[in-house]
């Protein structure tokens, strides 16, 4: 029995003349909860889009459940992988419930209306992220934390095995960040493999067991949190010198401050 859910084999990707990912290879086991870290513009979002087939790799192969991505059908793939994007803007006043219901589109043929199964999945997704009370509210009027949870609910309605999240904690205050990480852990415990792009290294150090770190060369380091989140490696990736204080990291904001340290 194959326990690898996602595998990159020598995957390269360029944006214009710039090589973003250079022959990247790694495998992710089922049920893992992985943080994807690295400086801005290093290719975290690109990697998530490659894994959900929104972008094709320039070379190399990506396998989901042992099957190459191009051989997944258009409706099959979103039932296995859900990408929760960084930004979601909705031009009309759709109530939350109808937005979450879009996660069921991969299950619905063109002329079908929603089935009992669809409605249960939407209800379950809203319960899991605790937005049942928001069902008739408008997305445009929700707070940042509520919006994050609506986006995750769309992904849950897809009932995926693998969930990819693009900086789910951005714009959230510390309380909402912790709530969100707790939510991700619950989802992970319920059987969903999670890969989440993250900026807050302390949250990563505390809550993720494995890390993929992209560095600007371009290169990457993958492994357990303890192995990857080392001050020397972080310095290479982020071109600052974070200090470790127990499990936590602090990056001095300037040279003068660095001397104080």
């Amino acid at each position: 029995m194959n326990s690898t859910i996602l595998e990159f084999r020598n995957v390269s990707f360029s944006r214009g003349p710039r090589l973003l990912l250079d022959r990247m290879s790694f495998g992710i086991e089922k049920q893992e909860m992985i943080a994807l870290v690295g400086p801005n513009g290093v290719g975290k979002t690109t990697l998530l889009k490659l894994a959900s087939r929104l972008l094709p790799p320039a070379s190399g192969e990506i396998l989901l459940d042992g099957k190459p991505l191009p051989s997944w059908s258009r409706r099959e793939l979103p039932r296995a992988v859900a990408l929760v994007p960084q930004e979601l803007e909705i031009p009309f006043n759709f109530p939350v419930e109808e937005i979450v219901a879009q996660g069921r589109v991969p299950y619905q043929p063109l002329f079908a209306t929603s089935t009992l199964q669809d409605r249960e999945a939407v209800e379950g997704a809203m319960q899991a992220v605790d937005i049942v009370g928001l069902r008739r509210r408008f997305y445009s009027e929700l707070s940042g934390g509520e919006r994050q949870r609506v986006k995750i609910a769309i992904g849950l309605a897809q009932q995926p095995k693998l969930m990819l999240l693009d900086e789910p904690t951005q714009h959230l205050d510390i309380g909402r960040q912790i709530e969100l990480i707790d939510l991700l852990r619950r989802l992970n415990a319920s059987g969903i493999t999670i890969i989440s792009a993250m900026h807050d290294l302390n949250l990563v150090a505390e809550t993720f067991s494995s890390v993929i770190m992209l560095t600007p060369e371009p290169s990457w380091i993958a492994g357990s949190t303890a192995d990857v989140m080392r001050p020397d490696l972080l310095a290479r990736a982020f071109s600052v010198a974070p200090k470790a204080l127990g499990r936590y990291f602090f990056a001095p904001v300037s040279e003068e401050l660095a001397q104080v340290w």
Partner: protein
Amino acid sequence: MMRASAREKPVAATGGQAKLDSRISTRTLNLVLLAALLLAMVLATALGAVRLPISEVLRTLLHPSRAGEAHDIIFGLRLPRVVAAALVGAALSATGVLFQGLFRNPLADPFVLGTSGGAALGGAIGIFLIPTLSFAGFSATAVLAFCGSVLTMILVWYLARASGRFAMETLLLAGFAIGTMLNAATVVFELHEEASNSGLRVLAAWLHGQLGIPTWSQVGLLAPLVGLAIVLGLPVAGRLNTLALGEEYAEQLGVHVGRVRVATVIVGSVLTAAAVSLGGLIGFVGLLVPHFLRILIGPNHVRLLPAAAIGGATFLILADTFARIAFAPTEIPVGVFTAFLGGPAFLYLLNHRSRESRQ
């Protein structure tokens, strides 16, 4: 109704109540709209230069074989015009819903892709060059306007694709450029010394949306076309709901965005062309009706499309009746009236919306 739980109550600066989706049910609205449509049809048939009592109208409609003056007025003049108004209103409002969904913008109107320019040029050619010709009951103007808008659409689509990076903005810009060019070509026609005075008057009325009295064979061809296009628009409308999340998100959810685009543009162009061939360029209907109904039943395109079709038909029948009788014996083009009414109504709705969201 579901209330926001206490914990989720927004801490808005104004301390206002959370805004909930508390819109009326679609079935109720559709029944009300259908009743209004029937009422408007009867009323519009009764009103005009010769005022017919409602009872007479109903009797004649129920016994169409009975000859007489009322019969001639109703079946020869009024009813074809009412049906034309209904078809045009339904087609333009439905196209508005589809294009607004495709462009994710409530300000996209049926002519957003430049089709009005092609229709205007076709119409001008018909009016000035071959005013007496007709094909299968259609005037040359109607046929050329239809062809003009469909050809413009094909050209705009082709240009947007040829530019390499096919995006909605490219499509909009190509539409704008081509539409402007074709409108300029129409002006050349108007200013040509051989353009007759009467031709200019006909063109001016047509460009401002003058409904004519179609023959029953015209109605017989266009009514099924409009009906079919709206029915085919329904599955497309379902995908437009997903497209509201963004094109990339829709793609990620398995939606074939390219196909949705093609289908929307084809259905919308056929509807616009049908409307243009019956009534020239009637503005604001495609903006106003969807916008108003979105406030009543929400933005779900599957529910909005049929409601907009029925509501648009009703609206344009009433508007055209007013345009016919308000300044009798002079008829003003219904497009002038919709612009007169539509402008302020639209501003009111915009203001209403922004006030609502401030609360």
